[in-house]
């Protein structure tokens, strides 16, 4: 009978209840099966403009002037770390009028080091031609991305070299919005000089106004050509003077890139830190559902921790401890009732 009372007392004891609860929770936490969660991942093709204007230094990294290409490389490497696991990224370079695929999209988590190394190795020296026909490059990147079934991130400053003819960029032959993605505008709004390199890749100064074509004189002349000095409809349809301009300087050609984005159905975003780029991509690119394991254990474990803290922290405080004399010990009251008891 007294044994039963003891059991019953134990069961009513909040301490025992907490302990039992914590034990059960931890048991569940240790043995609960892993759940499966559906999550979004992204397949991306990063196409990087590696033409000469991307060597212009209008960014700063760690307090030092950095070229646009270095900045792009840094942002893409940060982006790599921010993409959810299961996402894949491929890399392509753009110069001349083509986007050239280096490798197809690979898993950003499993091949992180390889991707990171490949991004670090991006170099303007890979460029096989000096031209920078951005519109054609974007179109070929769209084709490539469509073929790979990936979203596109095209990073460029939008500087066309040679300049676009007066009739505007070449027509886009694909279907708009076939490929989702972002054209990322790289560079500042202030025109800066473009570094010039010799055949061995040593920097030898900057491009001057007379070094680069300032006007595209293919195709029909602009409407206002007849106002130019020395204009003659047959002999000098673009005017008699040499073209002058700022094509040897470079700044972000935002209007051109916005127009290209509108034509191809991509979005446009100026280059920002990786966080902003990742958000823009997650808004624009088509997510691919991936299955990710989800560990449910933290829920019962957190409950167990709360119960254990209640057990070891709260209950002793609430109930007080006889040895600290926070409440009247039972024995003494007994002694008051029966002073003749042998224990008193």
């Amino acid at each position, binding site marked *: 009978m007294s044994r039963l009372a003891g059991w019953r007392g134990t069961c009513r004891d909040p301490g025992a209840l907490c*302990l039992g609860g914590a034990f059960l929770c931890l048991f569940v936490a240790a043995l609960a099966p892993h759940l499966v969660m559906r999550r979004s991942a992204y397949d991306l093709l990063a196409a990087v403009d590696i033409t000469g204007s991307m060597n212009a230094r209008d960014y700063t990294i760690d307090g030092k002037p950095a070229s646009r290409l270095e900045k792009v490389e840094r942002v893409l490497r940060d982006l790599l770390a921010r993409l959810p696991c299961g996402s894949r990224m491929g890399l392509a370079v753009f110069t001349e009028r083509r986007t*050239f695929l280096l*490798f197809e999209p690979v898993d950003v988590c499993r091949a992180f080091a390889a991707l990171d190394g490949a991004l670090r190795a991006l170099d303007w020296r890979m460029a*096989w031609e000096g031209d920078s026909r951005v519109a054609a490059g974007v179109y070929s990147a769209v084709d490539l991305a469509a073929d790979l079934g990936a979203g596109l991130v095209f990073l460029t400053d939008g500087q066309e070299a040679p300049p676009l003819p007066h009739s505007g960029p070449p027509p886009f032959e694909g279907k708009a919005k076939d490929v989702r993605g972002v054209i990322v505008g790289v560079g500042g709004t202030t025109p800066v000089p473009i570094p010039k390199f010799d055949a061995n890749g040593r920097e030898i100064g900057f491009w001057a106004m007379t070094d680069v074509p300032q006007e595209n004189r293919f195709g029909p002349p602009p409407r206002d050509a007849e106002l130019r000095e020395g204009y003659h409809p047959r002999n000098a349809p673009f005017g008699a003077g040499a073209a002058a301009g700022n094509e040897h300087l470079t700044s972000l050609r935002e209007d051109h890139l916005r127009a290209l984005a509108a034509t191809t159905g991509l979005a446009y975003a100026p280059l920002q830190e990786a966080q902003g780029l990742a958000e823009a991509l997650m808004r624009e690119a088509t997510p691919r559902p991936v299955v990710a394991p989800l*560990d449910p254990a933290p829920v019962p474990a957190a409950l167990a921790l709360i119960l254990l803290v209640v057990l070891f922290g709260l*209950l002793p405080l609430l109930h007080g401890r006889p040895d600290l004399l926070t409440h009247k010990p039972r*024995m003494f009251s007994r002694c008051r009732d*029966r002073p003749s008891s042998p*224990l008193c």
Partner: protein
Amino acid sequence: MNLGVEHPAVLWFLALAALPLFAGIFRRQGLPSLLPVPGDVLSAMVVAALRSLGVVAIAGTVLGLSGLHRREHSVPREGFGTHLVLLLDRSASMNDTFAGRVPGRARETEEESKSAAAKRLLTEFVAGRPHDRIAVAAFSTSPLLVLPMTDRIEAVEAAIAAIDRPGLAYTDVGRGLALAMSLFDDATLGTSRALLLVSDGAAVIDHRVQDALRDLIRRLPVHLYWLYLRSAGSPGILEPSGGQSERTPQADPERHLHVFLASLGVPYRAFEATSPGAVKDAVAEIDRLETRPLRYLEQVPRRDVSRHAYGVACAATGLLLLAKLLERDLASRSDPIARQGSRSRRPSPA
């Protein structure tokens, strides 16, 4: 053990593990005197054990919640493999068939392009060599670094998968070789290195580039392999062809590249493949030749051990629960003193 946690901030809760040292979970019962229960070693040990069980329970739970895991690490192992640089030709002619035709879309001919054959066979080749570290470079009009030395086969396969895309114009093999040589990083010192050049043609190598290559190879000897995808009608590389007047680098750059590579003083083999079947044989031969003992690092993936932490905490809690269930009031014991005490609890009828 190389342990790490996912959420270091959660570790602050480890301070809670000190609670069991200050507070007990058993019912306190006052005794007027400690004389009837003199301190003994066994009891002290039981008390210490129960308290440490409490510490273990809380600490284990907190560690589990912080995402305790064994970090990814690498174990050095001995195996067979090599450090390999794949130098792939991506000039436009690689997209033609071995017969020199553009592969027909209508599939009236079942011929595949040289690049498609190379892609298929190289993919099989790298998949069968799990211990290799492989870098990939491409060359055409200019050399392009595709992938630095990596042990991730899937990245290498992605780079190989890209080679049957439309190529560029020219074949600047000299600078391509120089780039490929630069991909052997410090980790390849004192190990075996191999360079596999896959191309369907060559071009004249500038004398300065030739000197630079000789210099590079003298400093860092490699095993050279050239898988020459020979199209129908193009001259062979193993035998001089044509009359004396045609034996110039400009007229027959492939043969001259072969002679140049053979003159470098490192083990060199050229394979002339005129069909996908021949490519397969050549790749199998390279596979056989490049199996030298290699010390490589095996990656042991990260392993989650939070479940183990919960298990330990669960065991500690279970033991505490057992102790708690075995707990008895002094009153319910059968010794005379306690019985007297329990009797005294009842109000006397008097």
